[in-house]
């Protein structure tokens, strides 16, 4: 018998809000978090923008001594974790720490620090500090969170980059099914870094103005950063301690296009398969899906493939389902994109409001669905799905539903 898994806490750091209430307010108002990047020197680049996190004041959250050992990615992860953990009241309620674990998704992890180290090292201008290397591993943020919470259950990190924190949520769900944990911290954290910024630029996948998912003028993504953390809890454990239940995590799918290293399968066949796989795992018929949080990177090919995949699953009804492309506001946060979008999806269900896709002006005949243009809409959402697709055709889809006994 499968255990039911619910979401009992959310935490977020993003370019449009550094806590859940600011984030949600900005999201439904359609605020764009894009600005000129300051965390590394963008002057040599043609594109200078990113959805950079601002106003976080890490000094308010960590001692100076501790900060020296935390990468920007670690800081985001810890801050979002603390919000989620207290929202779930797990900072107050007693729990068996052997039955709690952490599975996060990672993108570039602490590479921003490692880049600084190797810049100094190669240029030979000054002796680099080895403490910048402490976060060389993608696992570091996961470990920091587990250590802070004292959690002694299962721990790991997924590294499927653009879909990492969606795959991590799927794996965290399985830790509860395997009987290894009652509570799992999941989602992901990622920070801007020069390697991924220049890499996406070199592939000509970035837009130099703004991220315009599904719009005919779209030219690509705007790289973002932040953390989206969710607390997954086995239902009976949550009920017993009278925890706030925000939504139910019904199931997920992970699969491969097996097509190309960077391009999605153009007909949406991989997108179709992952959505069908997720709905089958969740035991939800396609008719019950009321909204879709799209991957929506605003690259020319992704948005067409995703649109086609959605049509293949939902048929004639596809045009009636409001789709949100929130990367238009928070950017593409790579390793934390799936986590941030999962937080948005849970809030969509809880609040009955579907966030908009902003910068949507010129319809593309190849992207002809309802993308919730520029204005959020009110809607009672029973089931919502969140798509994440990564380089190499690594697809993931998460299914969340309104919780009822």
């Amino acid at each position, binding site marked *: 018998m499968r255990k039911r898994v619910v979401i009992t806490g959310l935490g977020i750091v993003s370019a449009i809000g550094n806590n859940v209430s600011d984030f949600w307010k900005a999201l439904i108002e359609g605020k764009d978090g894009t600005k000129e990047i300051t965390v590394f020197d963008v002057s*040599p*680049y043609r594109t200078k923008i990113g959805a950079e996190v601002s106003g976080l004041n890490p000094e308010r959250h960590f001692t100076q001594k501790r900060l020296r*050992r935390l990468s920007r990615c670690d800081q985001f992860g810890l801050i979002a974790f603390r919000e989620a953990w207290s929202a779930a009241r797990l900072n107050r309620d007693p729990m068996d720490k*052997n039955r709690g*674990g952490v599975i996060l998704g*990672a993108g570039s992890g602490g590479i921003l620090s490692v880049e600084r180290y*190797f810049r100094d090292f190669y*240029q030979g201008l000054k002796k680099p500090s*080895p403490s910048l*290397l*402490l976060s*060389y*591993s*993608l*696992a*570091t943020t*996961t*470990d920091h969170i*587990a*250590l802070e919470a004292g*959690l*002694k*259950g*299962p*721990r*790991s*990190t*997924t*590294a*499927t*980059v653009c879909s990492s924190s969606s795959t991590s949520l799927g*794996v965290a769900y*399985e830790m509860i*099914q*395997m009987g*290894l944990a009652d509570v799992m911290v999941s989602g992901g954290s990622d920070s801007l870094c*020069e*390697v991924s910024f*220049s*890499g*996406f630029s*070199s*592939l*000509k996948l970035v837009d130099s103005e703004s991220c315009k998912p599904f719009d005919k003028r779209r030219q690509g993504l705007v790289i973002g950063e932040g953390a989206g953390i969710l607390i997954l809890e086995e239902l009976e454990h949550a009920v017993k301690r009278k925890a706030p239940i925000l939504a139910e995590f019904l199931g997920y799918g*992970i*699969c*491969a*296009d*097996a097509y190309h*290293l960077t391009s999605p399968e153009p007909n949406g066949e*991989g997108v179709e*398969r992952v959505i069908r*796989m997720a709905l089958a*795992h969740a035991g939800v018929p396609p008719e019950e899906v009321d909204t879709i949080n799209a991957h929506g990177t605003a690259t020319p090919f992704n948005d067409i493939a995703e649109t086609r995949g959605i049509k293949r699953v939902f048929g004639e009804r596809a045009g009636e389902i409001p789709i949100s492309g929130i990367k238009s506001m928070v950017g593409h946060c790579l390793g934390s994109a799936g986590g941030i979008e999962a937080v948005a999806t849970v809030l969509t269900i809880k609040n009955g409001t579907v966030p908009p896709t902003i910068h949507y002006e010129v319809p593309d005949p190849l992207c002809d669905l309802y993308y919730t243009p520029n204005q959020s809409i009110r809607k009672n959402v029973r089931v919502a799905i969140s798509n994440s697709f*990564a*380089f*190499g*055709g*690594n*697809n993931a889809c998460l299914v969340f539903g309104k919780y009822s006994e």
Partner: protein
Amino acid sequence: MNHRVVVTGLGIISSIGIGREEFWRHCLEGTSGIRPIRGFDVSSYRSRLGGQLPEIDFKVFIKPANLRRMDRMGKIMVSAVRLALDDSGLDLGREDSNRVGLSLGTGCGSSDTVYQFYRSLLKDGPMGAAPLLFQTAVPNAISSHCSIEYGIKGVNITFSHKETSAEMAMAYAYHLLKEGRMDIVLAGGGDELSEPLYHVYSMLGALSPGKGKGSEGMRPFDRNRNGLVLGEGSGILVLETLEHAETRKAKIYAELAGVGMTGSTSGVLRYDLDGKSIADAMSLAAGEPALVDAISAAANSTRDLDRAEARAIKKAFWERMPEISVSSLKSMLGEFDGSGGIRACALVLSLYNGTIPPTIGTELLDPDCNLNVILRQSQKRPIRGALLNGCSNGGSNISLLFKRYVPAANPC
């Protein structure tokens, strides 16, 4: 709905052998894969050894058109998958590709490509950023290459959690198969030894003899060990539901029968100091501890991990401890994050052949590690069940229970 999960194929790219037969022969002979580093200059470091792969002609394993798109790490992984598929006798053309999956683990993936990319960026600015390097630099490029090469469309995931990356990949695959959500999952992992990684390990003081006295080398559980030597390679297991394996009359090497996962909280770069977390992972995986006859240890020639694991084995098995044969394959291969795949292949072969490879390099056991460590010579013994331990610094501990495959009793 609970399926039994069996191992039906092994693919190994290692410093002591390419492919199952050569690898296993060298395991039993106790051959060391560790030599002076080739390919980059280590004269400025205090350590100079590594367990590097021999020169490999990857054309033997990979279609030439695809080879061009892969970096070295990709080639290592795709070749190990090829060897595993060949060993299993699977014809993927006859399988439902949606029910065949890939679950891989790597600690640092294409670290060499990442730093090549970054160096040319530092040198030439944005014009130096090479798109071809970037697309293979992402950690999941390895599972993408494999899915494209072999048309594998089911689950596709890459884990990266230090020294438990491959163990996690196998644990996840096991669960999916047990629930019947896939028929076959290629699981395991690997890593490459690159110059930047060597530099990072050296700067963090992990390499032998970066710290401590005595000569350089891998000596797990030895009183005079002084740190680890980095290795590289890849090991892939074909994991399959028993029904599926029986239907196609596959050769069955062993059964994967349990998983335990825990976390310790000793510190971000610390192993589980008191061994409790490792012991819990072993107990969760073993279920019935009386079945365990052998352990493939995570011990990597660092004082902290060797002692923690020894304490853990004592805690978990107590009076049975002297009967349990313990060996660390890392003594031959060196340490690397994705080593769990190769170590699992060796453990499966131990179960199948009833032989345990020795722990080499180790001469005098640390009194705090007074386990039944198989030293110098391989040991023949019947093995009913065996644990593969993975322990990462920072505190993820994973144990997998492999059992000798015994068909279900015929009801007639």
